[in-house]
């Protein structure tokens, strides 16, 4: 691990709610459902999703394209597209977000939530220096002067591992490599010392050695700043490396969730099991991979029962086809959407 110039100070924490009970989740969502009106009818992007994340913890949301993993956090933070209808409860630092008027919600989000998206280039404004972009949040939400904010930006760039931060603060995004840009985006996300960091596939566009750097960086920042992290990814390897708890999504619903060790040691939903099994590993060299047939369902055309049923290697019975299986506990904190908990073959 690299030497770093110590933990940044936490200036101007004005306006933040009083320090909370550490057992209280930073973000908790309950029964979140997102329906998006499209020209081919309503698409149920997210249905009945519950989870929460505590300070200093990382929740990994895993799923394929169209599984609803990104829409879940967008809707939870009030960033869902206009055409989306969001129901359910979302509590950020104990405040119910869904009933707040948009300006207040925007302020809460800006102050307490940092975002890191997949493509660092589109997250940055090409005509502003990175120092300016990092300091913007500090000025806006922490009420710093321009000079203070600039000092803070240099500090943050140093924190995320940008070499010679004082000089680099005056550079423009195109003068940075992909990995360095993503560090800048992380610095921006951290500028208001958010209680929650939402990272939506932050390493997918990066090379594997750069990915390793970013994974380490976020883990380190989380430890030192006590930030709660929601990490959205499709890479099970990344999940194993970053997560404390994991929620596997398929067809807009959680199919399995629990502590990361439990889910990887005893994957209990056929989808989770199949995903883990389909990863190429040395044991399979030269042999067929146990692939899942077919393609993920479209949110426009979801099966009546279990969304995974058409591709399920186990294929329970008619009940799976027509009825939605409940999310049932199989171990403490470990829940699986199935009619047949504990049955390996079902």
């Amino acid at each position: 691990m690299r030497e770093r110039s110590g933990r940044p100070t936490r200036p101007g924490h004005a306006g933040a709610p009083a320090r909370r009970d550490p057992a209280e989740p930073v973000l908790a969502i309950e029964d979140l459902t997102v329906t998006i009106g499209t020209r081919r009818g309503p698409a149920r992007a997210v249905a009945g999703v519950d989870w929460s994340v505590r300070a200093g913890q990382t929740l990994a949301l895993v799923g394929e394209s169209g599984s609803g993993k990104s829409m879940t956090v967008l809707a939870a933070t009030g960033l869902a597209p206009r055409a989306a209808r969001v129901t359910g409860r979302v509590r950020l630092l104990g405040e119910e977000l869904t009933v707040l008027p948009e300006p207040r919600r925007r302020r809460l989000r800006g102050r307490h939530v940092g975002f890191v998206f997949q493509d660092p280039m589109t997250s940055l404004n090409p005509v502003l220096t990175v120092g300016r972009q990092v300091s913007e949040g500090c000025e806006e939400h922490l009420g710093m002067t321009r000079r203070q904010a600039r000092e803070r930006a240099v500090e943050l760039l140093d924190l995320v591992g940008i070499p010679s931060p004082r000089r680099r603060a005056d550079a423009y995004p195109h003068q940075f490599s992909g990995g360095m840009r993503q560090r800048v985006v992380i610095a921006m996300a951290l500028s208001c010392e958010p209680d929650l960091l939402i990272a939506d596939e932050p390493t997918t566009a990066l090379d594997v050695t750069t990915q390793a750097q970013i994974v380490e960086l976020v883990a380190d920042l989380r430890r030192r700043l006590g930030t709660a992290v929601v990490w959205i990814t499709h890479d099970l390897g990344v999940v194993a490396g970053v997560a404390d708890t994991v929620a596997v999504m398929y067809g807009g619903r959680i199919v399995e969730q629990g502590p990361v060790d439990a889910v990887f040691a005893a994957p209990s939903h056929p989808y989770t099991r199949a995903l883990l099994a389909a990863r190429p590993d040395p044991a399979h060299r030269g042999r067929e991979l146990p692939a899942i047939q077919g393609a993920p369902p479209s949110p426009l055309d979801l099966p009546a029962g279990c969304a995974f049923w058409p591709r399920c290697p186990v294929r329970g019975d008619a009940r799976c086809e027509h009825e939605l299986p409940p999310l049932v506990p199989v171990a403490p904190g470990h829940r699986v959407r199935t009619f047949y908990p504990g049955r390996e073959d079902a």
Partner: protein
Amino acid sequence: MTADAAIGPGETVAELADLKVWFPVPGGAPVRAVDGVSLRVRRGETLGLVGESGSGKSTTGLALLRLVDPTAGVVRVDGQDVTRWSRRRLRGLRRRVAMVFQDPQASLDPRRTIGASVAEPLVVHRLADTAAARRRRVAELLEMVGLRADLADRHPHELSGGQRQRVGIARALAGEPDLIVLDEPIASLDLSVQAQIMNLLRGLQRDLGLTYLFIAHDLAAVEHLSDRVAVMYLGRIVETGTPEQLYGEPAHPYTAALLSAIPVADPRVERHRRRIILSGDVPSPADPPSGCRFRTRCPQARPDCAEVDPALVEVAAGQRAACRYAGEAVRAMRAPTAGEGPGR
């Protein structure tokens, strides 16, 4: 379309000798995308080419079809030196070497039907005499890649990502090529679909005796599909060998670092292993470091690494590495005390 029994394994299908592909930059030094690469693809094998962005792996693949112009070196296909072939002559070459692209959505013309896309090589190379023969062959090709023949009338946007990539593979098969360059064929597919495509590629190779150059950044996929692997860094091949050799006993520090960066889908392993985290970024290919190109990021760099440009030397039977301290450096990196790297 079966492998010719008369041609045994080991025969060279395509070969690059000291290939350089430099792209001119107005008012600057040229970008040395590929800077002295030699490799040989043998009939019936899968040669995996791994590297990160900017390593030159894709440009190397394009050079085999002469889709980029070599600055220096030789491209040989089926024993013929095609380095200086005219545009017209190259069109024939491109029947023998086919390509599958990363993004199946982008690599299919959105305005043409699936059937028209798959049939294009047949039309271009006059491989089917009549429209009916063409249709039959398209149906055959689609079924070969696991698609229903009636998808021929559809447009790409009506298919899923996995289906589109199957179409891309069917198109590559149409000319019965000697070599297929697979440029990141699974990278933009859904997780649950990647394994399907890997199985398809393997099955086709087994049934049709195909030869693949499999270009990818996903080391696990490369290990799974390849018979031999070449690792590229900054326009050079730094190590070659069998997957067992490279993944078991990597000799080049970069290979070791790359392997250590791959996340393993097991939280217990992840929690306890020490990654070799490389510091900094890949240097600019317009201005590569002197001596060993990896030395600026190498945790085991020694002073003389800046002076001598290491050649690929054999470190074990069939395994070669371009490092003066091959093996030794990796052992030092993996040793408990040195694992953290020198830091910055």
